[in-house]
């Protein structure tokens, strides 16, 4: 009997023991994209160092905000750590979803001065610019452009373009030049296939078209509100320059986008580019390591920051990493954050394809030459602008998505009407929120 018992009980105890040994674990939530895979790879080192197992839930972008914000609003315990969009910081702080990190940073010698100031401002602070930190800058990002360098390098195309426009076919310095180049490629047959100008953001459901159109609006000098009077938007958001930018974006959609590109965002733009349909794609820096990896000799693709127009500016992407207030493992989550903030880990993060915001990485003499898009990334991070980061940002985002899509893709009304209606919608949101 003893023998029988030992035969059964030994493996059971061994199993329980091994489960107990691995019982410490953390769950991190982020969007499902290339950098998430890089982080998963990087985190193996954390597990090796600490024995804490890392679990990940990566949600596809179209559902990312909805899934994560639902989880936070329901005070769910699924995630210990969350890499949330920059616009969520207001909500995370004001509704108490994120742990305030000041004390932890002070106690562990983590200084926000060690991180790129634009990323600290955008990803970590609430109220904006105040020394109240709710996230550690995790993934710097901005909207940028990739172009088919191999097509641009063809002498016959260069000659034809110069003959037509009087300047060289190359990286566009302004949106006007970008338009010239896009239309140059639109419908052109190259290597026996019809090509198109540019894959730009037109997605309706989440944030796509807003992120795209604001890339133009920022370059035209758009401001959301009166700098001297908060939430005073009339004459700023719907200024003549803003109207011109929105009209320009529609012109880009009509004259440069491939057929059927009416509800496209990150993956659709990437697909259109990779399949050789378009000369340009608008996308986040996060995707460039993937594009670059497939082009080892750098002959096919080139990258550049958002072109200037009246001013130089770029749409901010990227995220900070936060500890979820409802997690039962806050201490462990903070340990992960402490580990992630180390300069050597930040360097590895960049090497694996993540966009570190740490100044040791960005300021390293080798950084600019470490990737073909590194200089563009540095340039962009100096000129980034973000959408409202108010706690009500979703309520602010949705009407903009609808109105802009209605004008740009649907061709309904005028740009001025669209912007005026957005201001009406936003005013209602701010009034309801007690801000005005």
């Amino acid at each position, binding site marked *: 009997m003893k023998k029988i018992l030992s035969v059964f009980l030994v493996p059971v105890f061994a199993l329980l023991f091994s489960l107990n040994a691995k019982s410490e674990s953390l769950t991190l939530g982020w969007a499902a994209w290339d950098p998430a895979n890089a982080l998963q790879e990087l985190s193996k080192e954390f597990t090796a160092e600490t024995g804490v197992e890392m679990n990940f839930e990566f949600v596809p972008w179209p559902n990312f905000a909805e899934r994560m914000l639902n989880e936070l609003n329901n005070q769910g315990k699924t995630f210990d750590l969350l890499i949330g969009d920059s616009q969520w910081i207001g909500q995370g702080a004001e*509704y108490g979803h994120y742990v305030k990190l000041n004390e932890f940073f002070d106690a562990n010698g983590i200084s926000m001065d060690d991180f790129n100031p634009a990323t600290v401002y955008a990803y970590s602070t609430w109220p904006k610019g105040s020394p109240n930190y709710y996230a550690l800058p995790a993934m710097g990002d901005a909207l940028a452009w990739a172009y088919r360098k191999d097509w641009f390098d063809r002498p016959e195309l260069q000659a034809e373009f110069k003959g037509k426009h009087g300047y060289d076919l190359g990286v566009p310095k302004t949106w006007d030049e970008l338009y010239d180049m896009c239309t140059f490629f639109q419908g052109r047959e190259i290597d026996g296939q019809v090509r198109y100008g540019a894959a730009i953001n037109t997605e309706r459901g989440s944030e796509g078209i807003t992120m795209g159109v604001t890339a133009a609006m920022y370059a035209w000098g758009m401001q959301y509100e009166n700098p001297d009077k908060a939430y005073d938007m009339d004459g700023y958001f719907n200024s003549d320059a803003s109207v011109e930018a929105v009209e320009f974006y529609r012109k880009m959609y009509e004259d440069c986008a491939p*057929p059927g590109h009416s*509800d496209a965002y990150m993956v659709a733009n990437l697909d259109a580019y990779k399949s050789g349909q378009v000369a340009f794609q608008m996308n986040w820096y996060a995707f460039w390591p993937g594009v670059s990896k497939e082009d080892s000799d750098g002959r096919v693709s080139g990258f550049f920051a958002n072109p200037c127009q009246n001013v130089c500016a770029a749409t901010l992407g990227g995220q900070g990493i936060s500890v979820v207030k409802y997690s039962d493992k806050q201490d462990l989550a903070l340990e992960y954050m402490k580990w992630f903030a180390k300069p050597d880990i930040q360097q590895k993060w960049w090497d694996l394809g993540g966009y570190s915001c740490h100044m040791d990485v960005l300021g390293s003499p080798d950084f600019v030459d470490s990737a073909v898009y590194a200089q563009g990334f540095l340039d962009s991070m100096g000129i980034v602008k973000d959408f409202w980061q108010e706690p009500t940002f*979703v*309520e602010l985002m*949705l009407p903009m998505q609808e*109105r802009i*899509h209605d004008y740009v*893709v649907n061709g309904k009304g005028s740009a001025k009407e669209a912007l005026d209606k957005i201001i009406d919608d936003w005013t209602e949101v701010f009034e309801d929120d007690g801000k005005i």
Partner: protein
Amino acid sequence: MKSAVKKFKGLSDKAIAWIFIAPTLILLLAINIYPLIYAIRMSFTNFYANKIGREVKFVGLKNYKKILGKEEIWEKMQITAHFVCWTLVLQALIGLGLALLLNKKFKGNELLTTLIVLPMMLSPAVVGVFWTYLYNPQVGLFNYVVNFFYDFGIFDMIGSSTLAPWSIVIVDTWMWTPFTMLICLAGLRSIPNYLYEAAEVDRASKWQQFIHITLPSVLPFLLLALLFRGIENFKMFDLVAELTSGGPGSATELASINLKREAFEKWKTGYSSAFAVILFVTIFGFGNVYVKVMNKIKDR
């Protein structure tokens, strides 16, 4: 068996009936009635489910007034009406036509029936996704087929505000016509043969037989199918959300898609509860009128 009978001894028939009904009744109250009452209560407040700690105030009919006075809500209702009406008309005509065809005996009848009913076995979300590929202007099969018959050139079903409302009508019709067809087929197969034999004896033409025998017999079945489809399409969400996300702009933003955005993206819980109540009352009202009309037709 005897012991089971013994256990019920002393209980009246009514009590036994209640025991059997009670679980269903409790579930119904918990899952349907309670949330309905709760939603009605919330519709009179300014409640936001995501604003924890914010004071919830009673706002009376403010949400209802706001919704009914909003031009955009009426636009969504018009888009919904366009979708519901056209899908019902097309599904009634094509469904009845297919049922008449499949009611004939021919080789391969059963295989054809199986193939025709396949679309309704699929998940609406999946259908929505794969039709986005079929509608792709560059590589989509739909555009290829249309251009095969007449050269329209490149056209974008989903990206055009004129075509997008029809794109969702086409997909829903493709998916759910088999349902109407099956119910009509059941109706056709229940018509006794002697009616047609008697009509032939009376030298009635095929058209007269259809008008005086087939159509009146199958009409109650068809109306029932349309009732189900009407209710479903009034609430349509998944297929359209995947296919167009309500776009371009708001060209295909049905009432239910707008409701979801208000409730679970903007988190305007009080406001969206009021909207949900309005939609519920509308569909309930239409449904009741329809059933009364249907019963009158049946009684004739």
